[in-house]
């Protein structure tokens, strides 16, 4: 009898239902493939971005260097005043001794172009470090100038017509002879990390940018960490629920979504114009960045405090702790891993933040690392911006390399945050 109640009259195998089922399954597969394609696109774009950076940037981690036997003749460099010596002629003579057949000012100039135009200052620096060199012949390693650096790295094609490259056939011949004599090497480019900025790609390094970013992040941390944690603790543990605290909450959420360039305008108008703090200085950069990161730190700290179960608080209060003691002795230590994770992630964001730093002038051309938080400096992301704007071929790979260094710092910071989260965080 029960069989009759079932709608057995439906015929699942006629053409119409089969076609419909097929259509529905096709739609199912389509959505699945669309989703997969979307993910593939996103991941593919990420891969394209990273590959193009590595492809363009890996060359900048090595630098073509040329070793010359330089005679520091007393004719040019006086023993009692090595600073004032004519090091240009010192270089010229050492090149002459290598290429005796090159004569005439035009050819000599073309020959000298193989070396970085900073070569005289490099020799000067070595002599000032060790004045006993004067009068002797010493091997000195000098960076090749950008066109020859690119030639040695294969970025300049030798087969291309002479008019289309910045190095002449004659110069290539000289360079190859230096190479054949074993004077050309391609060691790791320590200058990328220890030199400050320069107009010459072969001399430009990130030391100024790294110290600037370090100081700015230090200031940012010293302001935003205590202020952010104190604000979060107050709002989460002490604040009465009234209109005033509602305003503060809404405010923090909105501040988190304000474009960062607006914070730059604030820094320019208030910190630079009103308070007269120095332009381009890491202290101003750090203060602006701390305002940018403050909402993030407050929000993550509140989440970490919320994750501590109420029973801990009740137990502490129950045995006679004051509310402050309950927070400082029990809640904060338990929430600390979460707070630190949020802070590090906030600082990582601050490290990559560029627009507000541009507005307060941290994109100046500064040729030595800042000695303190009040001295003008650049930061890593603004350095990337400056180099990206430079026309020389060598700066394209330097920019990519600078980005790789920046990403390395970011990955390290995030790795520390993940480690802290996995190691120290407790689930209740």
């Amino acid at each position: 009898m029960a069989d009759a109640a079932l709608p057995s009259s439906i015929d699942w195998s006629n053409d119409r239902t089969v076609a419909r089922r097929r259509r529905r399954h096709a739609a199912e597969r389509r959505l699945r493939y669309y989703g997969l394609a979307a993910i593939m696109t996103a991941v593919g774009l990420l891969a394209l971005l990273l590959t193009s950076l590595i492809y363009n940037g890996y060359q900048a981690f090595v630098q073509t260097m040329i070793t010359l036997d330089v005679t520091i003749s007393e004719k040019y460099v006086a023993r009692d005043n090595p600073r004032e010596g004519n090091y240009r002629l010192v270089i010229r003579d050492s090149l002459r001794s290598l290429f005796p057949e090159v004569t005439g000012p035009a050819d000599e100039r073309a020959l000298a172009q193989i070396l970085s135009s900073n070569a005289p200052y490099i020799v000067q620096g070595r002599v000032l470090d060790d004045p006993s060199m004067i009068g002797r012949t010493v091997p000195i390693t000098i960076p090749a100038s950008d066109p020859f650096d690119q030639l040695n790295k294969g970025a300049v094609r030798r087969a291309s017509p002479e008019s289309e490259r910045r190095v002449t056939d004659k110069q290539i011949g000289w360079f190859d002879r230096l190479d054949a004599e074993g004077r050309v090497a391609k060691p790791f480019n320590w200058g990328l990390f220890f030199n400050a900025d320069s107009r010459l790609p072969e001399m430009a390094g990130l030391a100024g940018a790294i110290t600037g970013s370090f100081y700015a992040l230090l200031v940012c941390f010293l302001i935003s960490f205590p202020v952010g944690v104190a604000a979060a603790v107050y709002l989460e543990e002490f604040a009465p629920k009234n209109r005033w605290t509602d305003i503060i909450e809404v405010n923090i959420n909105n501040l988190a979504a304000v474009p960062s360039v607006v914070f730059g305008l604030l820094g320019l108008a208030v910190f630079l114009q009103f308070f007269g703090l120095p332009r381009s200085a890491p202290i101003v950069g750090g203060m602006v960045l701390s305002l940018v990161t403050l909402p993030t730190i407050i929000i993550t700290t509140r989440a970490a405090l919320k994750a501590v179960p109420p029973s801990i608080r009740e137990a502490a209060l129950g045995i006679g702790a004051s509310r402050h003691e309950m927070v400082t002795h029990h809640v904060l230590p338990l929430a600390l891993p979460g707070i630190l994770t949020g802070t590090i992630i906030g600082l990582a964001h601050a490290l990559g933040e560029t627009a507000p730093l541009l507005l307060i002038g941290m994109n100046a051309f500064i040729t030595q690392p800042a000695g303190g938080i009040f001295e003008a400096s650049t930061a890593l992301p603004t350095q990337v911006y400056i180099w990206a704007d430079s026309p020389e071929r060598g700066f394209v790979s330097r920019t990519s390399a600078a980005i790789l260094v920046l990403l390395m710092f970011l990955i390290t910071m995030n790795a520390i945050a993940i480690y802290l989260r996995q190691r120290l965080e407790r689930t209740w």
Partner: protein
Amino acid sequence: MFGYAILLILFMSMAAYFVGRVSAAPFAAAGGSHSRPIYHGAFAAIWVGVPAFILVLAWVALQGPLIDRLLVLSLPAEMRSVSAAQLSLYLAEIKNVAAGMIFAEPTPAIREAAVTYERWEWLARWAMLAAVAAITVVALFLTRSRLAPRFRARNSFEQVVTWIMIFCSVVAVLTTLGIVASLVFEAARFFARVPVTEFLFGLNWEPQIAIRADQVAGAGAFGAVPVFTGTLLIATIAMFVATPIGILTAIYLVEYADDRVRVVVKPLLEILAGIPTVVYGFFAVLVVAPAVREAGSLFGIAISPNSALAAGGVMGIMIIPFISSLSDDALKAVPRSMRDGSLAMGATVSETMTRVMLPAALPGIMGGILLGVSRAIGETMIVVMAAGLIATLTINPLDGVTTVTVQIVTLLIGDSEFDSPKTLAAFALGLVLFIVTLCLNVLALSIVRKYRERYD
């Protein structure tokens, strides 16, 4: 000197802590004291440290402007009766001379002022240190005299800490007020010179005006409509890239992906979200813009080197993880019973998704898209590097357009006078940007919140 002052304060606070603790030790030993000795110490330390710290901050903030003011008053009368811009040039010159950076031979009055300036700077620095020392010593004696067995040191200490915490939570409000005040103030100065109607409805944007009389430059036009349309064009392109990819990614991750895929894809999306925007900007200039141009020349279309398409497309890539994570949250917030009910009725997964889950999650997804739009409008570095500088009134994505943020940065980059309409225009644009993004955020957050309340 700032560093020394802070060190001095730290040292005095620590000293006060030990003084308080040691002098309170006998109370505890005698029994019947209200607070433990460490609270007496903390009470002393906080009252020694905090006022001195506030003093130093105020001093550093006010010293510069005050000395400038005094310096101007000390200048001869004929030097004072010039424009504000000229006066600030004088001040800069005086400071340069005082710092030993002499470019041209300064006038005797400037030289004299430089000497005065140096003396006052020196005086101010040492006076600050002396004031800090004085205030900490006085505070130490005052607090020390209050310590007694029945003194409620813990309550007093906690009260001060509470006030400090309240101040910290007000910093966010102060920041907002600071933003609003500075933007409104500077924008008002701009609108005193350029009418609001011209700014909002004018069709011509040529802000590069002559700062000096002898410079050759445009007469200056501040009609911001082309800038607004450029911003909207690029933001639209970005959303056309980000919305479908973001939502489809979220759908796949929520419904189809197994845990192995999720474990790989989620961190990759987080990496995409964590890449600084300056990197995206460089990517746009280095790879995407040339590729777009190549593709155009294949079809014989001339594409501007800083086309809106390249900048908007890369901005879209940046926004993908944002949209996908917010859509992910919205889809996960749909009650499981609705999904299971649909599947139990025989609907396929895709039918459940398009007919049940997506409509239910739509407010959340819309909120996410609005937040994405607000991001796209406020995004700076990608467009500064990849979009154009010239404001053209067009909706052709192959042309170069400029955006609000590009104009803000280019108008303010480098040294510029603070009085010219050119720099003030940047603040007017900033005000518009702030208001628009704020409205979008408030709208998006209220949509998300309302929706969440309905299902919780």
